[in-house]
């Protein structure tokens, strides 16, 4: 092994870490700028006679929200029932199975509903957004928009962002209700607590703040999924293979960002 190659290896490794760090900071900056530009077009666009197309927002809402209902309902129900099973198993050790509603209500509403919804939307719609924008970039459709005097952020990004901002919290609320219902059905079957008594207990336990905690997180997740999808889609190079690469990257980054944000949010909200 040559000395030069060994030096290159250490230097190259250090240089690579530096480059990746700078690229990471640059991407966060791009995300912030993209969010500001989206807000600009949303509020200033109509005054410039370049409003955001309402029909595009509705189409995106259908794609992000309505078409995702079956998948999210199924996952919510499964996780709700699973939470009930695990909570009963654990509480049985202390002979406190009747307190199962506490564990289920807090976990589903404050944690699992926004987290699972965010992850599913990232896998389903964040990847689709990155792939769509990436394909549009390599087929020069983004250039076509620019030369037609149509701002791509206004035309493509704002509708996706608005759709996510409306539909992710809506899906999260649905996730909460379905998850709680399925948990209640399992508790009814296992412990014989009636559904009416279960819902009464849930309403007693949960405050508006708990629901807002879950919904608030889902708003942040919506913004993260949309911006990460757009930034990755817009950075595509190298044809179809590049589209596949940015799509995978968008999903991995979005899920990682959701989990880290979730932890930070939980830390700050419980101080």
């Amino acid at each position, binding site marked *: 092994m*040559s000395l030069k190659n060994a030096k290159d290896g250490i230097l190259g490794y250090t240089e690579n870490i530096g480059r990746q760090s700078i690229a990471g900071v640059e991407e966060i900056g791009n995300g912030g700028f993209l969010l500001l530009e989206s807000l600009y077009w949303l509020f200033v666009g109509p005054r410039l006679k370049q409003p955001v197309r309402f029909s595009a927002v509705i189409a995106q809402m259908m794609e992000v929200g309505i078409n995702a209902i079956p998948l999210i309902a199924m996952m919510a129900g499964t996780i709700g029932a699973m939470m009930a099973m695990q909570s009963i198993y654990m509480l049985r050790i202390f002979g406190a199975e009747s307190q199962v509603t506490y564990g289920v209500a807090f976990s589903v509403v404050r944690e699992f509903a926004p987290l699972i919804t965010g992850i599913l939307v990232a896998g389903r719609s964040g990847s689709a957004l990155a792939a769509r924008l990436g*394909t549009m970039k390599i087929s*020069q*459709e983004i250039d*076509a928009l*620019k*030369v037609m*005097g*149509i701002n791509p952020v206004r035309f493509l990004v704002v509708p996706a962002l608005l759709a996510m901002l409306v539909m992710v919290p809506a899906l999260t609320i649905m996730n909460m209700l379905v998850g709680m219902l399925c948990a209640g059905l399992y508790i009814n079957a296992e412990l014989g607590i009636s559904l009416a008594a279960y819902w009464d207990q849930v309403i007693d336990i949960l405050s508006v703040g708990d629901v807002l905690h879950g919904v608030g997180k889902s708003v942040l997740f919506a913004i993260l999924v949309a911006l990460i999808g757009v930034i990755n889609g817009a950075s595509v190079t190298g044809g179809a293979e590049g589209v596949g690469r940015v799509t995978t990257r968008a999903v991995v980054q979005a899920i990682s960002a959701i989990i880290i944000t979730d932890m930070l949010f939980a830390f700050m909200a419980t101080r």
Partner: protein
Amino acid sequence: MNTEPNIVIEVEDLVTHYGPRKILDGVSMNVAEGEIMVIMGGSGSGKSTLLRYLMALEKQTSGTIRLLGQDIGTASQQEMFDLRKKIGVAFQGGALFSSMSVGENIMLPLYEHAKLDMLTMEIMARMKLEVVDLAGFEDLMPAELSGGMIKRAAFARAVIMDPKLLFCDEPSAGLDPVVASALDDLILKLRDALQMTVVVVTHELESVFKIADRVTVLDRGHILFIGTVEELRNSKSERIQNLLNRRPEDETIDPDEYLRRLTGEEEIGGDATL
């Protein structure tokens, strides 16, 4: 009486870079109103790059580009917005939006800029589809069209706003000779019918001879020739004759340089090894 042609595209001393690499170096040219200017050159000569700068898709390192009298380097956002309404572009692959039908693609610039009622926009789109021989195809999706039809639909979208300038990137690339010739006829027809100035980037010699009023030949980022088709044919330049006669240029290979490229080493020999 003033017989000076009205210059609508002016490029002065344009220098552009892609990263550290210089792509265009001191390019100057102009295009008169109503003229068809063909930009040609070998692969990597910088012709598509020049077109991207003319379409204001990139910011130049230095130099000036004026379109319809507007310096695009110093134009405000609103000035660029107004200028873009007067420019049409037919991209190499068509760049039709795959989620929209042919009719919706063609109507999009009208929908965004003209604010007309839907019936009027549909009528205007059908008129342009008639011009490009695609009448009746407005409800099809781009994926249902052939390569030639996609390019014609792209032309219809490019001219829907009756632009003053039309840019075409490799219009006949990847098409059979008959369809390519039909597209050349379409460019001539659009120029005559709509009184547009057209800039075409191509390396198809038949197209050049058929449609060009003047030709710009680029070579490694520099302008090698600007003139009429006749002047091009009669040029004594060896490079131009090589281009016209499809002769590859002799390239002297430095053996050391070749070896360095293969091994990826900066220097041959002299490495400290353990």
